[in-house]
């Protein structure tokens, strides 16, 4: 269990800024995510030494160096596996994982699935810029079909995947999406992830100014977001474009269409606690331009975490057998004297 300490001196953003110079490209979306986390962590009532930030490889994975917490910049794709070990070994830490679309969904896809299904109490931020940045501009598993990059000069023939569909299919308890250029939304989503007990998966739509600039502009520029972004708020109807459009349940499918005064009451109401996850999964399939882009908390359903179950088994074994006695172990089974 992570201890929150009410007598803790008030921490501020400054306490979480390391002495290292931040070296992302000017204008990179990573800066705001860094600032957001440095804002959110001091508010958790957790001592600074009880945070660990684990990353893989990629532009985003330089993140730990810029946070004045315990940090581990690991190897490509493996952040979740390392973080699983950190959390299992010391459940008292709040462990954040920083990964990207290449790191988390391509080379590390396997670990993502398994960490999520186990429900290790990790806070995972996946920076999705739909491109490989650190290796200078190759298409990634979330790049749009047909995108022309250095390794897809005739257009990518790879079907992209939705990070949230993957996460929800793996059974994640907390799934959310936010964007790098909306500080308020970003901090509120990270705050919700921090408070969630269990794996919290947050996809941040993050702009790469060099290799994929403006990829989210069609639905998340200051003007387009009012029309094409669908904000998910618990207990509120799923409407967008100034409440002119809404979601309606039609049998097994969800219809997105204009809302009229007569059917406004029939608009589906968002419920992140919906047990089956069907609504969350359906929303995760939404892709622009056919559908609006949902932002916010898709799912928030808690269940026992892997680390607490592991701890529980150790305690149960000790209660049943007593704390391990080495001499007894060595002398167990069939022995004889000479």
């Amino acid at each position, binding site marked *: 269990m992570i201890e929150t300490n009410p007598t803790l001196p008030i921490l501020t953003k400054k306490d979480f800024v*390391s002495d290292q110079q931040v070296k992302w490209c000017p204008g990179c979306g990573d800066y705001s995510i860094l600032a957001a986390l440095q804002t959110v962590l001091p508010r958790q009532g957790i001592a600074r030494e009880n945070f660990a930030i684990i990353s893989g490889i990629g532009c985003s994975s330089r993140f730990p160096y810029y946070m004045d917490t315990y940090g581990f910049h690991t190897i490509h794709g493996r952040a979740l596996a390392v973080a699983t070990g950190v959390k299992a070994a010391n459940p008292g830490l709040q462990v954040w994982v920083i990964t990207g679309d290449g790191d988390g969904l391509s080379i590390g896809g396997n670990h993502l699935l398994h960490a999520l299904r186990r429900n290790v109490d990790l806070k995972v931020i996946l920076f999705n810029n739909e491109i490989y940045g650190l290796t200078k501009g190759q298409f990634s598993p979330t790049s749009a079909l047909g995108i022309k990059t250095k390794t897809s000069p005739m257009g990518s023939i790879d079907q992209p995947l939705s990070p949230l569909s993957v996460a929800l299919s793996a059974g994640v308890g907390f799934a959310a999406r936010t964007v790098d250029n909306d500080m308020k939304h970003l901090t509120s989503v990270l705050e919700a992830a921090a408070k969630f007990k269990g794996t919290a998966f947050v996809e941040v739509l993050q702009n790469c100014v060099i290799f994929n600039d403006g990829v989210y502009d069609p639905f998340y520029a200051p003007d387009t977001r009012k029309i094409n972004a669908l904000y998910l708020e618990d207990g509120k109807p799923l409407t967008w474009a100034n409440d002119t459009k809404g979601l309606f349940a039609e049998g097994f499918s969800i219809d997105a269409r204009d809302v009229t005064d007569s059917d406004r009451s029939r608009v589906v109401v968002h419920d992140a606690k919906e047990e089956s996850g069907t609504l969350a999964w359906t929303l995760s399939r939404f892709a622009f331009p056919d559908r609006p882009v949902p932002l916010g908390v898709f799912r928030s359903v808690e269940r026992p975490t892997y680390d607490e179950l592991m701890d529980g088994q150790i305690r149960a074994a000790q209660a049943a057998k007593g704390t391990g006695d080495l001499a007894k172990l060595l002398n167990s089974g069939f022995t004889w004297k000479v």
Partner: protein
Amino acid sequence: MSDQSQTILEADGRKDSVELESVTIRFAGDSGDGMQLTGTQFTDAAAHLGNDLATLPDFPAEIRAPAGTTAGVSAFQLHFASRDIKTPGDDIDVLVAMNAAALKTNIADLKQGGILLVDEDGFHEKDLEKAGYTSNPLDDDRLKAFRVVKLDISANTVRAVEPSGVKGKNAARCKNFYTLGMMYWLYDRSPSPTQEWIKQKFGKKPEIAQANEFALLAGYNYCDTVELFSTTYKVGKAPQVPGTYRRISGNEAAAMGFVAASVQSGTPLFLGSYPITPASDILQELAALKHFGVRTFQAEDEIAAICAAIGAAFAGNLALTTTSGPGLCLKSEAINLAVMAEIPLVIVDVQRGGPSTGLPTKTEQSDLLQALFGRNGDSPIPVIAAKTPSDCFWAALEAAKVAVEYMTPVIMLSDGYIANGAEPFRIPEISDLPKFEVRHPTDPATFKPYQRNLNGARPWAIPGTPGLEHRIGGLEKSSPSGNISYDPDNHQKMTLERYEKIESVSSVVGKTFVEGSPEGDLLVVSWGGTYGSVSSAVDRVLADGKLKVGHVHLRWINPLPIDLQSVIGRYRKVLVPELNVGQLRLFLSGKFGIPMQGLGKVAGKPFKISELVTAIQKTVGA
């Protein structure tokens, strides 16, 4: 028959008894015939009588290959003696073959004049066909070099267990106990410890327990009544160091060694592992020891297994990952992360036949160069190889001690032979175990992440310690701050520091220990699980008195004992026998520039003492 099967007859029918110094028995049958269990029971009985012993199970990769085929033959070899022995034996004195396939795959190892006990029920036309025999070898003189004892064990067993109410297939299944009973009679051992064991094991199924017990006693009594064997044999007590003993396999020993390391260091043990033959036992053993605070994480793959262990080490646990060759390939990038981040970690590689999937259940020593060099960059790692099943305990302890005292990953090599093989293990007193102090810094005023101590080790500061927040990773670090550095001079300095740190482990390694002649004609240099065979072969050559042969067995292969080169220089020739095509030889000749003769065997089996003796004589003579 049914009355007899419940008691042991008075030994009035007993024939002469012949005293033997050592005997090797191999039980061979179908995978489902219970040969491993039979062998283990005989082993315990031998231990009970004070014999020295060594065992070697040999089972197929398939769990249940088609019954009756040669692919499905499972065997268990046991060498027991009234003297000190170090191997499960070369050629066998007794072969128990439960079917034609078992005969076919094992008969080549039976000594001339050896006893061959066969179950005739496994030699019907279909069985012969599956084994690839065109005619029944029991019916002609192909087996005339052996003392063949054939009887319908299956039918006898079914009759014997009838009073228990167990019938048909289940009844026939007891035939391994019938056979065991026969062997107990032949080697003058009481079946009562096995009777006890049966009662405990099958306590919840009383009729099965009774059936097995009836079969055991019926086999014993059958020999006593029928003049099947002309003599019984006695193998007396072996001289052993006084103490309490247990039978231990290499994998069991390794698991206990790591628990001991955890207790001795006061640091919780974390194992990240992915099931792989022949290493899975260690994960299974440790998963059952949660009351020691052991955390076992069965990962989604080999990479996650080691990465989780690295994470646990970062968080302050004594971290371990266990695997075999193909898994070690997958782990190499992560091992380098531990090299760069200078994190304590033990990687156990229970070697098997390679390359690729290779021979999963057969032994080999062909991962040595991979362990030493199989990573990108200059990435030195201490490598220790256990020499016997019980040495896996001590090697595990040492590997863990070096890992935490030098802040480095350590590779511990075992192999399928010592991992599955078993021998008596003198149980140490807790006070005999090495203690090692684990220090975690707490003072923010003096803490620097890459400040090295006298061992060259950086401090192990663990998350949760106020004021010591720091970042580590796979990028090159500047010393002592631990910040990222691309400075060429710094990389040169750090590379050398990592190298020197590992070299300094030689203070743990100690000096070269020579068995046999301290100088002379030939030095035999071995490593890992071949210790028993090589040592026995050198003993045999020395007993002849003609040659001056020394034997050096390397446990630590990196670093090597610092005086090894000068020891090698005291002999005219050097022979390096190993279960690969010359990996240690390449390493040593590269280090020392001394020509060496190799003896490479890659047949999935350990060395026979006899083939080593021949090689030693040939090398000296050549």
